[in-house]
């Protein structure tokens, strides 16, 4: 079978010693930056870019790709251990992963995170191999109206991130939306809410925001309480997930992989959206949704699968059309161009070695990552035993360096600190960060898509209903919005029935 031959060919390329070496370097660095809050794949890949000049194209792509999906593995580590996301995509993992750690189940949480990432990574690669071309064409069908519809759907999912007061969560979501409008307006080109501060022209960075709201506030809250207490049960019950954990996680992993893969294909969407959507989906599918936020393993397994498979999905537009779906893909595009490779429709036929070699190396990389991360669990768990009074300055330091390194800007650090204060008050008074972050990320795309669509249709709103994909998405959105009302009505009806029977 042709496919089989291609895969074999790919492995021949991937298993060459030099490619194995660079694959390892890539995933290792990726894990490291995934763990460190703030520093992300884009910055590191950009810095390591010059190295790619000196090595063969396949090797360069293998390494850069390794950094990218490696970071998705590492990001969950700090989320689980200290409630600080290492990557913006790992914010959701904080919600339940950290709670699991507090119950002494850091090991299983980390383990399931690693295994979910591995399974999702592998499954999504299968998708990448088999479905590349048809999916690429499907992805093209998403224009501004479709994006608006899908983003609207995404915004309604925000409600599923709420653990406590729904109305406060909604307020936070709207706040996040408003914060996302700060910066240069895409459509008119004019600055909004920037007050002549040049650093705000590009908007508030998602990294300083997330690191501040989740990381700095976490430290502030902990510092305020008796710092002598041991936050976690020092004895970790076991280091690996139990059989029950596996049973619980099986479906979330499958759902997360599929969802993440599909979301990853859409340009601009990416791992963050995938992990948020997966969390919401899992909560929806769960029989005990109210327990989410208190340490449900599904809340770790699903999102971790989703953010990894979104990586594979993201490769599709790049390889098939030469169109990068996010900044990381754009860097890969650049790396290919510098080596004289034109990613795009011709790539598969002209340079099969590249495509299959990289795909095969991603399999290898996933294995390497699993092998790297599992033993490290024992090590990470030891980190929890470091006295907090020494740990917290280190945490603050890493958060700060992470925020600074984005743009070499102390203003970004200031933003982080401000949001740290905001996040502190939010925690104290029961306002949640996750809805705010999700709305903040979706906001710009949502608003731009709306205005672009209206420009395209000359102001006619019918554009949203005329196109099949956006129509479907809107129907789903409406359904989600109405379902609490419907179930409320149903409950009342049942209560009425019971009352009637009693009469």
């Amino acid at each position: 079978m042709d496919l089989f031959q291609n895969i074999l060919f790919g492995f021949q390329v991937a298993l060459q010693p030099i490619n194995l070496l660079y694959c390892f370097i890539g995933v290792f660095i990726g894990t490291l930056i995934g763990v460190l809050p703030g520093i992300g794949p884009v910055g590191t890949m950009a810095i390591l870019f010059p190295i790619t000049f000196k090595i063969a194209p396949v090797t360069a792509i293998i390494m850069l790709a390794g950094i990218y999906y490696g970071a998705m593995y590492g990001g969950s580590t700090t989320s689980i251990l200290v409630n600080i996301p290492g990557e913006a995509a790992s914010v959701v993992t904080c919600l339940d992963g950290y709670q699991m750690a507090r119950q002494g189940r850091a090991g299983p949480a980390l383990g399931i995170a690693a295994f979910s990432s591995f399974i999702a990574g592998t499954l999504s690669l299968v998708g990448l191999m088999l479905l590349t071309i048809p999916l690429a064409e499907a992805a093209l069908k998403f224009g501004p109206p479709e994006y608006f519809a899908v983003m609207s759907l995404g915004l309604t999912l925000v409600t599923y991130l709420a653990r406590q007061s729904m109305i406060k969560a909604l307020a936070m979501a709207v706040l996040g939306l408003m914060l996302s409008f700060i910066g240069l307006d895409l459509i008119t080109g004019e600055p909004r809410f920037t007050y002549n501060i040049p650093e705000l022209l590009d908007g508030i960075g998602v990294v300083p925001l997330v690191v501040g709201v989740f990381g700095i506030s976490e430290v502030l809250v902990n510092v305020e309480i008796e710092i002598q207490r041991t936050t976690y049960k020092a004895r970790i019950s076991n280091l690996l997930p139990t059989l029950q954990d596996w049973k619980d996680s099986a479906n979330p992993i499958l759902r997360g992989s599929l969802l993440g893969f599909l979301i990853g294909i859409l340009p601009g969407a990416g791992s963050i959206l995938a992990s948020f959507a997966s969390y919401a989906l899992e909560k929806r599918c769960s029989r005990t949704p109210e327990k989410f936020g208190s340490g449900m393993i599904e809340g770790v397994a699903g999102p971790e699968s989703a953010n990894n498979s979104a990586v594979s999905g993201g490769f599709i537009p790049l390889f098939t059309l030469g169109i990068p779906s996010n900044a990381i893909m754009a860097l890969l595009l650049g790396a290919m161009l510098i080596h004289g490779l034109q990613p795009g429709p011709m790539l598969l036929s002209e340079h099969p070695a590249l495509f299959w070699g990289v795909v095969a190396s991603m399999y290898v990389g996933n294995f390497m990552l699993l092998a790297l991360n599992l033993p490290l669990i024992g090590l990470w768990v030891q980190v929890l035993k470091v006295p907090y009074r020494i740990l917290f300055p280190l945490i603050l330091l890493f958060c700060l360096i992470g925020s600074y390194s984005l743009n070499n800007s102390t203003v970004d650090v200031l933003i982080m600190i401000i949001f740290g204060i905001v996040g502190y008050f939010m925690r104290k008074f029961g306002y949640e960060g996750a809805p705010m972050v999700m709305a903040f990320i979706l906001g710009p795309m949502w608003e731009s898509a709306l205005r672009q669509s209206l420009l395209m249709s000359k102001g006619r709103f019918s554009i949203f209903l005329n196109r099949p994909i956006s129509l479907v998405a809107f129907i789903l959105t409406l359904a989600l919005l109405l379902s609490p009302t419907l179930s409320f009505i149903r409950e009342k009806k049942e209560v009425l029935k019971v009352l009637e029977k009693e009469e």
Partner: protein
Amino acid sequence: MRNDDQVTSLFLLAFAIFFSIESLRLGMGTLREPGAGFIPFISSVLLGCLSICIFIIATLKKKASPGFGKDWKKGLWVLGGLLIYDLLLERLGFLISTFLFMILALLSFPPRRLASILLVSSLTVIISYLIFGVWLKVQLPKGILGI
């Protein structure tokens, strides 16, 4: 008896009002061609409504306040340290600033053994410089002393 939710919702309301005024200044455009301020205005109105709801619920329910922990001044101290670190970072350079920051942060809690504090601070500076400055090639600022 005021309680926290009332206070916080009022803050939110104030922010919403401020934001809505600024949005109006940006220009609303028309429904068919929304201007830069259109969606921000709608969002701020929405936030305003939600904060009023929170206020009403808070007034009706009267929950107890979570209060501040015993060591809340330490939080302020840490925050202040972070701010000063940020401000001095580009002036004094990464190495010195980090060193000073670590000392400050470690001093916030007992036991305050100077020797071990200096040791941990130095180690942190060296190791973080290695990880970030050398391996990951992050551009760490150099201060007036050139280091």
